[in-house]
């Protein structure tokens, strides 16, 4: 083949490659952002505009009142709960789940790695098999346990069953195994007991892992759906993800869509902000827990 043709082809291929990359990524970003954009825009128009189906592509002028309504009164004809309260409930739930998981996983990983005691491996495997038992496959019996313990409609019932974490325990165990023996020996020579070692050495060393895991677990907690749907029927304790879905009902055209869209924006803002702002921790947490 003619060399000049080859050279031209090589350059064309390079240019095409770069162009394709930008085009594909831009399209990807667009597809990913589009539903959010429409929701954002929808939250700034009045109910009639949306109800007519004339959702414009640019923001309107009703943002303030829509968000005020969503925040203070709630939307939807069948189910109105103010977003303020639901956001607070979601935040409590997410923080309790994330904090609880991290706390008990740290403790159990510490026990399994730094001590020898009877049934150590049995305990480890018991924690491990929870990986294979997601809430969804044991809905009814777990629900019955909650009812028997009188934890229905309580934050304890909402969060406690979700706090066991094989993933977090495995991650901390993995990390603790890499702590040099010298640290432990030094602590023992200095006369520091196991609890002191945990508090003064191990915790500070684990900060990065805790932060990374915290981001992932916060999102996990915030986005819970099936469990709160089952355990909470007191509207004052409703979380925003479940509350939003209830507002939609059967997707009636007559819904107060503007308020619902404003509520949707409020419902996804906290976890999305966490991911975008704490991106580095988020990616670290994600890629390290799932190994």
């Amino acid at each position, binding site marked *: 083949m003619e*060399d000049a043709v*080859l*050279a031209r082809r*090589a*350059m064309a*291929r390079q240019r095409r490659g770069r162009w394709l990359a930008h085009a594909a990524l831009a399209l990807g970003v667009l597809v990913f952002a589009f539903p959010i954009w429409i929701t954002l825009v929808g939250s700034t128009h009045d109910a009639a505009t949306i109800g007519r189906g004339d959702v414009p592509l640019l923001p309107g002028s009703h943002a303030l009142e829509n968000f005020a309504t969503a925040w203070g009164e709630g939307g939807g004809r069948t189910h109105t709960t103010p977003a303020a309260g639901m956001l607070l409930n979601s935040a409590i739930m997410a923080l309790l789940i994330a904090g609880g998981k991290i706390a008990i996983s740290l403790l159990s990983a510490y026990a399994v790695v730094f001590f020898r005691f009877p049934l150590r491996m049995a305990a480890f495997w018991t924690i491990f098999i929870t990986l294979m038992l997601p809430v969804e496959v044991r809905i009814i019996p777990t629900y019955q346990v909650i009812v028997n313990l009188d934890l229905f409609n309580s934050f304890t019932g909402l969060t406690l069953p979700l706090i066991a974490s094989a993933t977090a325990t495995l991650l901390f165990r993995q990390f603790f195994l890499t702590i040099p023996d010298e640290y432990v020996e030094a602590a023992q020579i200095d006369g520091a007991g196991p609890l002191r070692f945990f508090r003064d050495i191990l915790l500070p060393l684990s900060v990065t892992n805790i932060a990374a895991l915290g981001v992932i677990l916060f999102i996990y907690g915030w986005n819970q759906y099936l469990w709160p749907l089952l355990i909470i029927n007191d509207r004052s304790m409703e979380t925003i993800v479940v509350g939003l879905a209830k507002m939609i009902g059967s997707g009636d055209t007559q819904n107060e869509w503007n308020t619902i869209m404003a509520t949707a924006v409020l419902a996804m803002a906290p976890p999305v902000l966490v991911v975008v702002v704490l991106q580095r921790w988020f990616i670290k947490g994600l890629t390290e827990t799932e190994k």
Partner: protein
Amino acid sequence: MATLNLSAVTKSFGASTVLHGIDLNVADGEMIVIVGASGCGKSTLLRIVAGLETPTTGHVAIGGREVTRLEPADRDIAMVFQNYALYPHMTVAQNMAYGLRIRGTPKDEIARRVAETAGLLGIGPLLGRKPRELSGGQRQRVAMGRAIIREPKLFLFDEPLSNLDAKLRVQMRGEIRRLQQRLGVTSLYVTHDQVEAMTLGDRLVVMHQGRAAQVASPMEVWARPADTYVAGFIGSPAMNLLGGTLAEGGAAVQLKAGPLLRFPDGPRAGGDGRPVTVGVRPEHMLRDGEALVTVALDLVEPLGSETVLHGTLASGEVLTARLPGMVPAVGSAMPLAIPAEALHVFDAESGRRLDA
């Protein structure tokens, strides 16, 4: 088999220029070693020849064919990488056959050539293994095999021995040279190791800050370094570089360290008072002679057959000498002679060699 011609090749990454116009003509079957400290641009030059980078300006021709803008695939070259870059998911045989398969070589011919190349490199028993099951030296051979099997116009080597231990490096160095001579393939070999450069190359390109400081045979580079950088880079221990000024109308040099040395090969241009740098290799220093300098010793390294002395002259300049046999380190100062016939003279400002 082919020639390689580089003309005025430059490369810039954004604001920083890595190559400032390299010219090089490589004859058919020649082995050129590009040597230089890290960051001198030698790897970039090799990657431009490979087609992995495009030069900012200038031209590359292989076998008289302009390839500057061609992709690596269209250049008919093969490359051995520093980390071998074997395909981890393929067996040794598949690794070697990959390039042939892409070119649509018939299956039986691929099998024949794989067996032949494996025999040549002594890796026949390894053909069914994956790279992770091989030692460093074995991987090195497979990487060589992958390059050889395609019978390319040009071999490119990017520091292929630097991941091996010292003993294996010496052995592989010999093997590469023998193979290259036997196959007669034009080769470009990049290294930072001057011993590799001296032993492997038909000619060397000594690179310094994006320029070719000298292109010449290893002996030429050693005997007549083009500038003070090359003088200091090639040779171990490094050449002594002493300050001085021309005297007697350019026929001699007055060293800062004391003695006056007359050039046996004739006067240098410039006249009296021109500042120069005078180089003398440590192994050329003598225990006595005409031009004596007094060295305040601070380190004596007896190596058995010879002794390396490090010290300071009255001018404050440091001096290294390599003398045969044992040198009793008597006292802290010792006189040494600089033989006039071993001098290299460089311009003090530009560092360029000044010939008679």
